[in-house]
């Protein structure tokens, strides 16, 4: 068994088999993973907001979908992952409160998930599995040994996508 490496909020990391990458309690944020099944290199970014260009204070690249996903992709390649073999999986983007108002609170999860799809298309990385939206939090773990993406939620059965 390898080590479980923790990825915090607004954080990104790359690991190799037999290690795994884990992020605890994803809410409206997105946990996006990239994986190369041959070199068994995996990466995860836990970003909070879709777009860094909307804000002035955007120095933390792992906080945003656009800059975070690109940086993760770059790090994956730097660590031996092939751009041609890389596949992506995503989870999170929940709407934690059924807010009916017009504020962005209700939509940020959805926008975060859309941004992942847009960026993956740009980078030409296929999205092979996703577990996004709905109204609950998720703990997610990517196993670099086989690319399994394990998802745990309160009061729900565990699943692997």
């Amino acid at each position, binding site marked *: 068994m390898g080590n479980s490496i923790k990825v*915090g*909020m*607004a*954080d990104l990391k790359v690991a190799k088999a037999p290690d795994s990458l884990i992020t*605890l*309690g*994803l*809410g*409206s*944020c997105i946990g996006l993973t990239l994986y190369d099944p041959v070199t068994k290199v995996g990466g995860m970014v836990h970003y*909070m*907001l879709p777009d860094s260009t909307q*804000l*002035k*204070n955007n120095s*933390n690249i792992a*906080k945003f979908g656009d800059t975070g996903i690109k940086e993760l992709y770059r790090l994956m390649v730097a660590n031996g992952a092939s751009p041609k073999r890389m596949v992506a999986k995503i989870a999170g983007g*929940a709407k*934690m*409160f*059924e*807010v009916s*108002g017009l*504020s962005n*609170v209700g939509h*940020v999860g959805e926008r975060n998930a859309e941004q992942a799809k847009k960026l993956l298309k740009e980078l030409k990385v296929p999205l092979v599995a996703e577990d996004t939206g709905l*109204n*609950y*939090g*998720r*703990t997610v773990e990517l196993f670099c040994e086989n690319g399994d993406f394990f998802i745990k*939620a*309160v009061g729900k059965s565990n699943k692997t996508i």
Partner: protein
Amino acid sequence: MGFSLDNVNDMYIDVLREIGNIGAGNATTAISQMLGARLNMEVPKVQLMEASELGGAICDEEETVVGIFLEVLDDINGSMMFLMKMESAHIIVNKLMMRDPSYNEPFDEMDLSALKEIGNIIASSYLTALSSLTNMKIQPSVPYIAVDMAAAILSVPAIQFGQYGDNALFIETEFGDDKEMQGYFILMPEQDSYAKILKALGIMN
């Protein structure tokens, strides 16, 4: 350059502590009346931290907590959240429902509405304090509730704060009689509302 919690001064923190103090006082009185019991309250603690650290600020990220969320409208726009750990939430619901204090079953619909109402009273008390200090009209929306992992619930305020900077602010209060309960307030004004609050309080011109 808009207001950001990345460069707040001690005076602002003191003002928020005072608002928290008065708000928590009002809330304790309201809940005491609701429960028909006398409750004591500790001086609230104001904490400033990185927004990305918020998920683990009150307990382990995966621990289940109760979060009540309200939008705030009128002269100030934004949102606020009130959080309780499960133990505190069970104590207060059991008191309200006049159940045995050791009752520990998962919350049913009735319990959730009771919790929503408690969150509503606490949030309104806090907003009334803010409103009377600033002379501004502040209206809370209906409350929304979630019982889930702490980090998932706290991702909502983390994202709200994250839009304007890297820091977040929350207020911890303790109240109770024989058993202490902890609650956590998070006030999230929109960026232009910060300036309004500070102006109204005479901290900023």
